[in-house]
Structure formats: C-alpha cells, structure tokens
C-alpha cells in the first residue's frame, strides 16, 4: 500500500504570494493533520480534519486555512506569504479522528519564501 503522499516536494515563492499544498492519506485513513516544521525544531500542529470537518486548530494566523475532500485528501492554503513561513510542511494521516490511532507522516513539502 502507498504511504502518505504530498505534492509538490519543493516550492519557492515570494513574499505576499499564495500557496496550496496537497496531501493524500493512506488508503482507509479518514483523518489528515497538517504540521509546520522549522529547521532544528519539532513539528508544530496547524490543523486536523476528519470526515471533512475541522477537528482542531493550532496557534497559526488566519492566513493558514485547509480543507478535506470527499476522498479524504486535503489541501493546506497559505495566503500573504511571509519569510517566516519558510519550513517543511508535513501531512499526517490516521485511521480515525481519535488520537488513539497513530499518525503516519508523508515526506513533506519544502516551502521557501524569498
């Protein structure tokens, strides 16, 4: 079975632009979570979606938004990009929205904002 897939793998944007990152969960998994990982730090929670509904939101500004589609894939959108948004964006899938289920991570999207 394929693992979590993310696209694109790398992305370069300039300040003020908008970006859309995509994630496909493991087959059979209905929950997707998004994390931001800055170099040298652990991942920071952004959003969790389960059955197309937002189940949790981290301490990120409203410039960050996400959605989940009927096939359980997900998009993370970031508007008005800042230099500080440069990071590895990770998507994790789990079987359900219950945190007893382990989260499996994708390879990430490396975003560079110039």
């Amino acid at each position, binding site marked *: 079975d394929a693992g979590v897939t993310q696209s694109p793998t790398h992305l370069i944007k300039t300040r003020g632009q908008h970006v859309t990152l995509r994630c496909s969960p493991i087959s059979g998994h209905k929950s997707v*979570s998004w994390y931001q990982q800055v170099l040298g730090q652990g991942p920071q929670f952004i959003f*969790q979606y389960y059955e197309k509904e937002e189940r949790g939101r981290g301490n990120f500004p409203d410039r960050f938004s996400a959605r989940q589609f009927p096939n359980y894939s997900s998009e993370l959108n970031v508007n008005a990009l800042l230099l500080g948004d440069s990071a590895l964006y990770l998507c994790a899938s789990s079987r359900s*929205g219950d945190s007893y289920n382990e989260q499996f991570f*994708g390879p990430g999207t490396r975003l560079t904002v110039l």
Partner: protein
Amino acid sequence: EDQVTQSPEALRLQEGESSSLNCSYTVSGLRGLFWYRQDPGKGPEFLFTLYSAGEEKEKERLKATLTKKESFLHITAPKPEDSATYLCAVQATTNAGKSTFGDGTTLTVKP
C-alpha cells in the same frame, strides 16, 4: 499548555555503545506518547505508541518506556544506520488529533 522537552539535544555514540534518550512531558491528561525517527529532509517515521505508565515497547535495538512524567528511548548496541533525529510527541485527552512534539534528539553513531 502541553509541553515536551527532549534531552540531550545531540548525542554522539560509538557503534555498540548503548545509551538512552529522555522525553519529559506535561500534559492535561495523557492520551498517548509517541516516538518517531526522522532522517534529514524526510517526514517522521512512526516507531512506538505508549499509553500508560509502566508500559514498554521494543523494536530491534530500540526500547521505549513510560512513566507519569517522562519517557525513555533506550538504544542497545547502536549501529551507524541508527543515526537520525528521534522525536517524542504527546496527545492529550482534551485535544484529540493534535500531537505536541519536542525538538528532538539528534543521534550520531560512529563506526
């Protein structure tokens, strides 16, 4: 607010030299504690889940243990391929789906 602190930040071992990594946590009701391995430029790879104090899990040269305040990842007779950053994360009963991560311990094993 949930917090996770990992120590040491970096650890250098000789091949075969056993050691332990520490993860101290504060959480408003622990639902689960997770250990991941992360190689440079890649996503974290799931290793273990621990749910209650006293629980232990093993996988090859790795063994994870849990108390009410901390978890240890014991590495027995490590090999160079065990070199990676090891991340610890907790999930609280009050915030399903959100994992709070520590900043990791970067392990280097020299042959």
